[in-house]
């Protein structure tokens, strides 16, 4: 059964916290509009790392994705939701 979006978001924020324990941003300030690069401060390898972390957590595979596929957390959630269908 597909997870509701608010639970997906909760889980995604968990992953970001686990993967980036020393991050300088405030996790409580993150929203779906948060930009991965400018708000979360992810470099290209950081985006790759989070994508791999999401694969591990959600048990999905990010086939055919490129560096520019995810600009915001909302983009990531959209992809995960789509994969769950």
């Amino acid at each position, binding site marked *: 059964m597909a997870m509701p979006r608010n639970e997906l978001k909760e889980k995604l924020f968990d992953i970001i916290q686990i993967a980036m324990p020393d991050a300088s941003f405030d996790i409580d300030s993150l929203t779906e509009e948060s930009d991965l690069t400018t708000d979360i401060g992810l470099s290209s390898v950081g985006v790759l790392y989070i994508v791999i972390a999401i694969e591990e957590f959600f048990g999905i595979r990010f086939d055919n994705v*490129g*560096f520019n596929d995810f600009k915001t957390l909302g983009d990531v959630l959209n992809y995960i939701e789509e994969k769950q269908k």
Partner: protein
Amino acid sequence: MKWLLKDPSLGDMVRVKIGNIYHYGIFVSEDEVIQFGPAPNEQLNLRPEDIEVIATDIDNFLVGGFLEVADFDKKEKKKNRKPEDVAKYAQANIGRKGYSIIYNNCEHFANECVSGYASSSQTDGLRSLFRSIPIVDVFTARIPDDCKIGAVFPIERNDEINAVTNESARREKYCSWQLLKYALDRSLGLKIENISLSKDENGKWSTPSCYFSISHSHSLLAIAVSRAPVGIDIEALSAPLMPGFDEKVLTEKEKLEYASLTKENKDEYLISKWTAKEAFFKRDGKAAFIPREINIVDNELCVKSIELDSVKYFCSIATKTPEKIRFFEDIPTARFLK
């Protein structure tokens, strides 16, 4: 294999660091470096389906960076293609598509040209890094006064729960297993239906996929899930403890400390020691639980006090990484009893 700063030759695997990511290619000549897609910072306006194997000159490959050349040892060279065959293979794949940042990137392609096997140390390394992060998550939840007992996985656990005749005990076991199911998914992305679960001769359930520990007291459940051994115990401080409890639980050193406490603090001291020793026992999996022989390792213990409905609980968690513990308290019933 090592990476060297040297002049490349025909068929060499080469790479350049752009930002904090490496971009890989196959050197044919100064005018021809074959790579799967342009450098990462040049991919920003490209869809994965637009990315293909291309040939550019060395300056376009390097984009101002320093060229590194793969230096294989004798054993690796024996298994690899000859340099001229590496170059031919790379050239024959110009125009190939199917790019994936994780599964079919420039490093996969370069390794495939050289050895015949597509692999990426960058993505494998990141995956290993993530899998090595210590995770110790603790979930607490209330046991509802009434709930429908459904089926659980695996069937042996289902049968175990259904065999419990006491209704309250059966509800507690069902709810704890459902909270475990929620915790495994939430913390580790594990679906209980997809992991192997088995019971040992002492009746303890475990899985090779992770570690978990379950405890309950009164109407409160506590579950710990982790990638490393973990033990949890929770007890309510609701009534004076029976006389002689200290004799059975405390080490000689602890008895001295206990003797120096005021009456008000004695019960709290005893319960906190009891839960700590139970947590260590559950984590370390010893055959017999003899609390007065267990010495608590302070830097492997976290004790949390929880107050619920005017009842004070002590929750102890034994883990090598107590600083990594995350608490998810009072999980709503609707979240784990679906």
